[in-house]
């Protein structure tokens, strides 16, 4: 170990970061087993064991949250996950360097916009009170669609926004993986008479398969972690029934309504499920002969 001390020294800042910002705060999970009162603090609050977990699993809300979270996660996996792969395959086929670079830059842009801005933009376009899309629909003789309040539209809208914001950014890793493919493979395939499509299918895709698998595992690990901000911004009292997910529920019960312990219990449940999912997905990947994430 001493021999490689410089290397260890180099990981030190990262390790300290994780220790301070990721592991130390976990001590706060203790309040999930307490009836936490801010004024009494950690030491003074009453210990209640698994009461909050019992409440979570016995309330109807739990199944609503689970259903909504899983549905949206599945939809994202189904529709949003493949988009960057397809996009990077397409970009890879572009031969004109300038055009390729411009497209890449433009599709990265949405990633740097915050959800607040994106949701506001969509709001202006989708509202039935003079939103441009509904104006077009009405001009074409259709009935205006309440994209923003109709529960049926929440999930499609959510997934579209995810794709719009992150698909471009997601291509970075795939494009990087694609550059490592030996160009001789393409040349010999071309000699054998393979067209563009066949080259992409038989050379590019298999070459980036490990990358896809790693990202898939990471995705599955976060299956219940949709992130709070986006959903919080698109949800309102009319689509809450399909929009309420664990993250927004934790926020509403914990921060807004002040049930800190219960919210911590919900969050902890979500974290544990996430951990189990990562381990399972990783095992599965190894079984199929892939490398996995660890």
């Amino acid at each position, binding site marked *: 170990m001493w021999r490689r001390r410089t290397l260890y020294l180099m990981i030190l800042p990262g390790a300290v970061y994780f220790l301070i910002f990721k592991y130390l705060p976990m001590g706060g999970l203790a309040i999930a087993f307490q009836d936490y009162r801010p004024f009494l603090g950690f030491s003074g609050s009453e210990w209640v064991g698994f009461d909050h977990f019992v409440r979570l699993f016995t309330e109807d809300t739990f199944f609503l949250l689970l259903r909504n979270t899983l549905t949206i996660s599945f939809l994202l996996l189904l529709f949003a996950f493949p988009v960057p792969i397809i996009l990077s395959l397409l970009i890879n086929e572009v031969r004109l360097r300038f055009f390729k670079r411009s497209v890449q830059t433009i599709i990265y842009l949405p990633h740097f916009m915050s959800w607040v801005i994106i949701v506001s933009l969509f709001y202006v376009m989708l509202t039935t009170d003079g939103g441009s899309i509904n104006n077009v629909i009405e001009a074409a003789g259709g009935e205006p669609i309440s994209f923003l309040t109709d529960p049926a539209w929440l999930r499609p809208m959510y997934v579209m926004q995810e794709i719009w914001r992150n698909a471009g950014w997601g291509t970075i890793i795939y494009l990087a993986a694609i550059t490592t493919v030996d160009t001789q493979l393409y040349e010999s395939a071309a000699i054998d008479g393979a067209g563009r499509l066949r080259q992409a299918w038989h050379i590019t895709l298999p070459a980036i398969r490990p990358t896809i698998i790693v990202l898939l595992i990471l995705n599955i690990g976060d299956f219940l972690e949709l992130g709070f*901000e986006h959903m919080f911004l698109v949800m309102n009292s009319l689509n809450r029934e399909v929009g309420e997910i664990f993250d927004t529920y934790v926020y509403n019960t914990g921060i*807004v309504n002040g049930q800190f312990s219960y919210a911590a219990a919900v969050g902890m449940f979500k974290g544990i499920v996430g951990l189990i999912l990562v381990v399972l997905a990783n095992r599965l990947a190894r079984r199929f002969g892939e490398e996995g994430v660890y």
Partner: protein
Amino acid sequence: MRRIHHPAIAGTAALTLALAACGSGDDGDGGGEGAGKDTISWMSVVHTPTTPETDGVIESALQDYTGKEIEFQWVPAANADEKINSALASDSLPDLVDLGNITNTTVRQAMTQGQFWEVEEFLSEFDNLSQISPETIESAKINGTLYGVPKQKPMARYGVLVRQDWLDNLGLDVPHTIEDLTEVAIAFAEDDPDGNGEDDTTGFYDREESFQLGFRSLAGYFGAGQRFEVNDAGEVIPSFTTDAWKEAMEWYRGLYEKGAINKEFVTLQKQNQYDGIYQGKGGIVVTGLFEARGFYEGGLAADPDTTMDWALINDMTYEDVPRRILTDTNGGMGGWYAIPRSTVETEDEVREVLGFVDSLLDEEPFTLMTNGIEDEHFEFDDDGVVSILDQTKWEQEVQPFSSSRPSDLVITFPSAQPYVDLGNELMEENAEHAVLNPAQSLTSETFDSRWSVIEQQANDAYNQYMMGQIDMEQYEATIDALGGEGLDQIVAEFTEAYDEANG
């Protein structure tokens, strides 16, 4: 894909943001070391879109006057609750906390558990604080104890604002009954009141908080109580369960169906609502009567040629229901200025902080926070009438402070802007018709712990009904179901406390 990065970061970031405003006051608030408090950290709610710059002119002037270094921690009104809750949870409170939402469950629990100083015994030591009326003090108490300095407001500020120029265009009279108001609303939606030949106007221009603000006030005209009311059986019940409330809902829903309310008001944020009003999208606003001036100024900024003119109405009535107006200030009590025990540790320090609040009640700081600095933001004419010199400058530098005034009632300035004087006059008239919440000073443990959740569900059901997602039967079913979630318990506890208090 977003999820390459750990998405917990997003959540954490949101939390950090929520906490940032609260946590930043740690340096300089003394924490009890050394005698005297030279710096007062103050979490204050701001109702304007922007916060004033640190050490700006007004802040400096206030520091000079009070002799204290002030560290403002501005909290936007829209998420005041969550910031205060997270500050309470993490115990990162400043010296002085502005608590505006008196029904916030976490705040009430924190108070009754002793997170804040009891201040009543200190008040008599101060010139201005000792002048707070006993009724206001009484209505500010929880379980008979005063946990903060009550903010003094007019008894009831709400009313109905109607576009006078639109009424004139259509040849309609100013409505004073709900029946007439209904006609006006429909005419505004259908008869092109702005005369531009386009179907681009509506009657009511409401927003997201309809259930809490606009509609609630309208339901008051129908006879619904101020959040709670005592029914014939002597029970203290929430007003959203009453027949008057439901009748008002049916009426409002009818208007909505006729297009006389903006279509997606349940998602509309305050600033967007204001923008719509400035742009002349709607002609009826149920809001504070003091707002007419701002609407007019905003309308003028949006279109210098606007004909915008507002009729201020404070005597709306419905059928044979006597004139009444629900208080929007808890009966003249706009919340508390509370002093946390964790940051202010000794009684002497409490006195210092209270002395600071007391000095803000003097006329000079009140003028500073209302009008600004003379000859820089406003001027007095010979009759003492105030005119604002530069509206934009005033909005940026002065207006944010107006909600930080411990009292709105120190001086009433005659204004060059007629809406201001008229608004003040009408709000004063409101006082004798104000309907108060009979449960405000009553105690219910279940209320303190469950109310936020229950009210949220009632609010959701209201929104769903208005948008046509559910019908009245389903609304009633939702409300009935709340009984099992603690509402029955709350009614029982309040009724018991009410009987006790009223013999």
